[in-house]
């Protein structure tokens, strides 16, 4: 293909990729935008002012969503890092069974688990609570974290650890000064994307939170179904902000582009 044709195809692709974001930007600053007007009657900060005011609940919801995603990620690191090490560095009987258990939550739709999970949370007294929602989010997040860490540990050379230990380092010192620096880039990316997996959950939060845990997607949906396009658009743009920040962080750290991002990614 000629270079200018490629650029043309690229332009079409770029247009397609940003297209759904354009009306969101437009609506978020629109005041009165009736059919068939191509442009809003007035440009105003009204929707943003409301979205950022305490009575809209958006900022509180932003905080709740952040708290849930951050805690879920932290727990997933604590639990998934050791498991990833086992899967990445050892060949053992039952390994494929463990991998299957990890892949299942990615392939089985949330709706298949959510009813039973809700029943369990009810019995544990965790339905309708933030800890309950965090535990539920671990179902998609923990496998993701574990599988990415397994790929990271598969490239890790344990000989460095042996050397450190033979030179008298304690296990903790070895982990902190030898293992951690080696796995840190992979761990960072796994953590950032684990955060996003939790950040994007809708059904699990709706079901386990029972309407009492209002994360941003739930709030977004209630404004959308109320037909408030302007406020919905402002919240939607706030909602994609962490993803943008994470992308900026990763783009600066990683030059290998897609490769590191896509390891065991969720669609």
């Amino acid at each position, binding site marked *: 293909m000629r270079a200018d044709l*490629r*650029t043309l195809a*690229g*332009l079409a*692709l*770029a247009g*397609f*990729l940003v*297209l*759904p974001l354009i*009306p*969101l930007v437009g609506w978020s600053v629109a005041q009165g935008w009736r*059919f*068939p007007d191509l442009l809003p009657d007035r440009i105003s900060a009204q929707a943003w002012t409301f979205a950022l005011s305490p009575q809209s609940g958006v900022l509180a919801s932003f905080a709740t969503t952040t708290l849930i995603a951050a805690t879920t990620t932290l727990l997933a690191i604590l639990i998934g890092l*050791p*498991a990833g*090490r086992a899967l990445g560095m*050892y060949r*053992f009987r039952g390994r494929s069974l*463990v991998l*299957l*258990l990890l*892949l299942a*939550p*990615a*392939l*089985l*739709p*949330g*709706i*298949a*688990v959510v*009813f*039973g*999970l809700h029943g*369990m949370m009810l019995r544990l007294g965790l339905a309708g609570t933030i800890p309950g929602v965090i535990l*539920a989010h671990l*179902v998609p997040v*923990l496998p993701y974290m*574990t599988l990415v860490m397994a790929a990271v540990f598969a490239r890790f050379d344990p000989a460095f650890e042996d050397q450190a230990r033979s030179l008298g380092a304690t296990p903790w010192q070895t982990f902190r000064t030898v293992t951690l620096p080696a796995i840190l880039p992979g761990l960072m990316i796994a953590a950032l994307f684990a955060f996003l997996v939790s950040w*994007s959950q*809708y*059904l699990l939060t709706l079901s386990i939170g029972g309407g009492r845990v209002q994360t941003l*997607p739930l709030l*977004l*949906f209630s404004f959308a179904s109320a037909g408030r396009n302007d406020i919905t658009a402002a919240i939607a743009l706030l*909602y*994609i902000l962490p993803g*943008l920040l*994470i*992308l900026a962080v990763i*783009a600066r750290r990683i030059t290998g*582009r*897609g490769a590191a*991002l*896509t*390891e065991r*990614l*969720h*669609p």
Partner: protein
Amino acid sequence: MTDRTRLALLLAPALLVLGGLFLTGLGLTLLRSFRYMPALGLTDPDLSAYVAILTAPGFLTSLTLSLWIATTSTLIAATLALATALLLRQTFPGRAIISFLVQLNLTIPHIVGAIGILYLFSQSGSFARLAHAAGLIATPAQFPILTQDPTGIGIILLYVWKELPFITLILLANMQALGDDHESVARSLGASRWQAFRHVLLPMLMPGLLAASTLVFAFAFGAYEVPLILGAHAPKALPVLAWQASTDTDLATRPEAMAMAVVIALIGVALLALYARALAKGGSGAR
């Protein structure tokens, strides 16, 4: 400490948490689908919930719709992703920006994309306004119904938009790992560009493409929030139908919701088997 104990210690927390949450959740759903709910006084398991959903017309329509949405979205997204990956492998002005946009799209939650598609393609959306400005339509009702439509066009549009970058990035990563050598050899032996692609590159990309497509299919088949926003009132996508049955005030419909969830899970299990096979092939073939 032996390797066995060490392994057990490393794996135990993850297995406990995942087994405790995921398998128990799945198991409880299964029990309830057989109408086994001691708390409600139901202690004789039976298959009546399955009979009920299979004989009601709504379930099969919804199942067909969900399979249609997942199949169409996956095929379109995979084809376009292959073309996109081949494009992005080459150098041309603006490639960096497009690579950035592909990755950006990956971070945007489905629900945001769904709302964007709604505002673009609804009968009073951006495209309807453009059609009006071009003199093609006079009222919103004359614009074709592309969102909240019975055939799921809006839903498919969203999945193509959202999953194309996902598959593209996986293909690009595969291409990066494979390098250009295989194709160069084929070309130097006299293969045309098309032949080198068709007989050398494509077979090597196939396992990755299949694995990614399986993930996309599973997601498009089972996702709830996308058809909730972009789906029609009737027929509903299967996950929406199941959720609705579970929140019905009539407690009798709960086992039916569970039975639907089990059917969805069974299709997921079939996909898991396919995915495992695609990965196994990738392990022996491409590397």
